[in-house]
């Protein structure tokens, strides 16, 4: 059930109405919300709901056990149970086959290398490589998101930063809350559970902002992301040799717009739906392509993932408190894992490595120049930095989008040919990219002003605007609903 479908809108309307009708009956209200969330998830993977339920039970119990245990060793033991359970799920479903394949490949490479050495038996290695089992499991939708959420819960309790909830219903609703279940934002228990504990409140601002975000998210998805995917990006990545260098470059700009509009559009709808139920979800994007360096980019792109890894990986590793070398290592490891989080494939390994290297280089450069991070650059330097960072992002997206390394290499080769025609880029594609970029680089306050203006409108006018946007979406929409990119992670 995609957000950009009639089914989702009807489903949300029913759930939100029921939710407010039961507003005074907390248990029943949460029960309905939990059932709705599970039903929503089952539209993706009917039986994989068992994984969510299993994960919910595990972390609910682990949270209570950690909290009640006095001895540090026992607390750590329960934390480990939670970690092993969550990371085990992720490992089995997302990474096992990739690493098994990598080991098998290594064995074969080693066997091929040993072949050069007379007298060394090598065939057992290839036999071993052939015997490595593969699971061939489908990746459950949203597993990377909800496992991170539940892990943050038990870790926070272990750190004594959070008290566990006694209510299984509340915890299960926190894990499965449908607007953000399959593609984030990654919500922390400390910011969401208190909202479930109390009677929700709604006001004019939440209604206006919620509706505005849902509309904006749908426009981003349908008008920009899907349109660019269908009309240029997918084709270029499918047959890069059919396009000139400039067309490939335009497709990369297009993909850069597409992935932002796709993912931030999803987040907008999620946050907007949450607001209509009086529940606030954290922001996930802050105009990332305005960044001047890698550090800023990752503070603005998929903010809930970056901050999650900062709080639960980078800081525990020592952050920047243990000297520059250790700081570089920690930084590299964190960014590398952000890359790998997106997918179990060599393209993401390289993507993570490139961004990690850029991040480390940036940190090194800042230290070397003893730059003040708060220094304000001149306009020209600022524009140069933004352009540089933007193009670094655009080019690294080759690895993000390519189906494998061969495909990425083919795209890069085509890019380097230096051919210049743009005959295959439709005027509407130029328009979509240009418009999206222009909006992205407008002052943030403009969007805030539009949002506030929409919020201040009478309900009738809001309804008319929503209907008009709906008609626009019908006009622009492709004949089928195009899945959100981040669902695959």
């Amino acid at each position, binding site marked *: 059930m995609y957000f950009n479908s009639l089914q989702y809108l009807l489903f949300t309307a029913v759930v939100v109405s029921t939710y407010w009708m039961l507003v005074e009956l907390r248990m029943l209200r949460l029960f309905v919300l939990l059932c709705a969330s599970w039903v929503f998830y089952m539209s993706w*993977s009917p039986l*994989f709901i068992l994984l969510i339920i299993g994960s919910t039970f595990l972390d609910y119990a682990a949270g209570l056990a950690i909290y009640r245990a006095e001895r540090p060793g026992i607390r750590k033991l329960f934390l480990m149970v939670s970690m092993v359970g969550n990371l085990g799920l992720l490992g089995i479903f997302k990474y096992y086959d*990739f690493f098994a394949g990598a080991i098998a490949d290594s064995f074969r490479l080693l066997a091929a290398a040993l072949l050069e050495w007379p007298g060394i038996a090598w065939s057992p290695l290839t036999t071993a490589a052939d015997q490595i089992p593969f699971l*061939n499991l489908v990746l459950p939708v949203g597993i990377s998101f909800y496992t991170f959420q539940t892990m943050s819960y038990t870790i926070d309790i272990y750190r004594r930063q959070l008290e566990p909830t006694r209510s299984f219903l509340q915890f299960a609703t926190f894990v499965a809350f449908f607007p953000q279940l399959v593609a984030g934002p990654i919500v922390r228990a400390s910011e969401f559970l208190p909202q479930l504990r109390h009677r929700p409140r709604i006001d004019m601002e939440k209604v206006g902002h919620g509706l505005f975000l849902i509309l904006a998210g749908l426009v981003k998805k349908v008008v920009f992301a899907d349109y660019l995917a269908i009309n240029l990006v997918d084709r270029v990545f499918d047959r890069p040799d059919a396009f000139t260098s400039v067309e490939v470059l335009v497709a990369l700009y297009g993909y850069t717009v597409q992935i932002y509009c796709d993912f931030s559009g999803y987040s907008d709808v999620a946050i907007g739906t949450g607001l209509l139920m009086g529940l606030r979800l954290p922001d996930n994007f802050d105009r990332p392509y305005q960044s001047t360096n890698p550090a800023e980019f990752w503070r603005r792109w998929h903010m809930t993932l970056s901050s999650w890894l900062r709080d639960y990986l980078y800081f525990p590793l020592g952050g920047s408190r243990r000297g520059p070398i250790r700081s570089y290592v920690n930084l590299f490891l964190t960014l590398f894992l952000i890359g790998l989080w997106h997918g179990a*494939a060599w393209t993401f390994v390289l993507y993570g490595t490139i961004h990690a290297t850029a991040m480390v280089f940036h940190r090194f450069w800042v230290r070397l120049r003893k730059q003040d991070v708060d220094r304000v650059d001149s306009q020209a330097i600022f524009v140069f930095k933004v352009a540089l960072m933007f193009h670094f992002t655009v080019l690294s997206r080759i690895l993000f989008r390519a189906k494998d390394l061969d495909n990425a290499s083919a795209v890069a080769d085509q890019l380097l040919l230096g051919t210049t025609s743009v005959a295959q880029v439709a005027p509407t594609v130029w328009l979509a990219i240009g418009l999206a970029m222009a909006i992205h680089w407008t002052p943030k306050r403009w969007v805030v002003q539009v949002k506030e203006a929409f919020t201040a409108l009478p309900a*009738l006018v809001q*309804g008319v605007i929503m209907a008009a946007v709906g008609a626009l979406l019908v006009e622009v929409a492709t004949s089928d609903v195009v899945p959100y990119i981040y669902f695959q992670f």
Partner: protein
Amino acid sequence: MPTVGPPSSTNEADKLALRKLAIAVSVVTLFGLLTYVLPGVDRFQPWVSGDEPLFVNLWRITTTDFTRVTAAPSIAAPMTQTVSSDGVREQIANELGEAIAVNLDDMDTSDDPDPQPTNDIFPHQDDGGTRRVIEESVADTQQPETAQNPGVESFHQVAQATKPESPKPTSHIDPSELDGVGERIELPKSGAFDSFYADLRATMLQKQGRITRIAHYGDSTIAMDDITSTVRRRLQTRFGDAGHGFMLGAKSYQPYGHRDIVHKESQGWNINPIINGGLKDGRYGYGGVHVRSSGGDWSSFGTTDKGNIGTAVSSFEVFYLAHPRGGNFTVQVDDGEKETISTTADGLEDRWFRINVSDGPHEIKVRAAGGGSFRWYGIALERDVPGVVYDSLGIVGARAARLLNADKDHLAGQLQHRDLSLLVLQFGGNEAVDRKMSMKWYRENLTQVLQHVRSGIPGVPCLFLAPLDQGERDERGRVRTIPIVPKMVEVQREVALEQGCGYWNTFKAMGGEGSMARWYNSKPRLAWGDFAHATPAGYKVIGNMFYKALLADFDDYLKRTK
């Protein structure tokens, strides 16, 4: 920040906000309902009969929900769901038909001709290593070949392994090879293709020098060599690889490319596609694109090191035009000596320059060397072994009528030179845009085109292929077949049969009316969102179906003439 309030009853702010929300949603709902009542706005109806029912299919459990059925993931193909998954196949069979499901399954083998894909995860490295052995061995083997010379022996063993293996001679088609045969070829009369099949049988029996050449003209659905590369790979795997065949001298801005060949070019070539007209002499060459340079521009063509098809060549043949102001061009094979050829002649004269090389991996570079204007059409890569050559001759934006821009005698000469066993024509994709085209005019024009093209090779069997289904949005945004497409298909069929050509109905093979929309909605996606072109996966399905249609007809011939 969480919104926390006292545990009291609903307060006024909540009520007002919810009332506002209810009104806004009611207005939207009202507009949605009005689309069912008011005339002229039905295109905005949220749901109509014929759309997928809401909710009912959401909680359906399929086998693909849990496991992928796929080979071990590798660097080259990580974590992808293959079409060989039983669940995917079942779904495609239900939605698009059994024949398409079977031919989608066949995609794996045609996409990667490597016979042992799961055990060979680094084909590039392996091939490169093998080639190095050859080069080193060639350098080391100045002595006569003897059994005592291990270097010579290993060279020959490795060289054999590098070249495509010739298939074993057979005299029949195994029924399993016809699995998934769908739409069959319609012939104007029994035995109309016998000369083609006689050639193919000789090739199948691996008789020395028996090459079966096929030329496949078409529009943008052919220009990227997706359908044709599938057919070529399958024919060459089955009957023998006699070389890649013809490729244009340069593509310039055109979206044109071939699989199983490595092609590069400089940017300065001046090209005249036949679709533009403009050449007074009408000499657009065998591929329909005239290429020209006064000097400095170059194109290179080489064998591929991927897979088993297109890995070897034993002759390069440059198709060019000699003329009074002709310049020179040079050819250089691998790192060998450059050879300069003059293209000066008293009048206009189509010529061919052929270079024979040892059968194996090679690259040729053709460069315009100044001294005048170098005008050429392309190059053919072939091997002197029994097998099939399949020339992919797609021109972006082409309509069949554009072939009339070619000088009749020139075109006849080009076609005669290729010594074709079968001529394939596939047009209609661009004509479908001419919504008001009269079918009477189309019939007359198509008849004229077939006569024009076949005049030089009247004895060569001809096969016309229907265009792909092509969709457009109706008034409410749903995709339907452009109404002119089925009409054109019927006219094409009638004209082809009248003119003594066979007909293969691509449109029908895809599923007929509405198939482009179904292909677009299928998973994996088989058609693009322009509803005019298939994805590479879709083209491969068509290629597989066409190959099997040819094979099934050939099988009939074999049984009939046994």
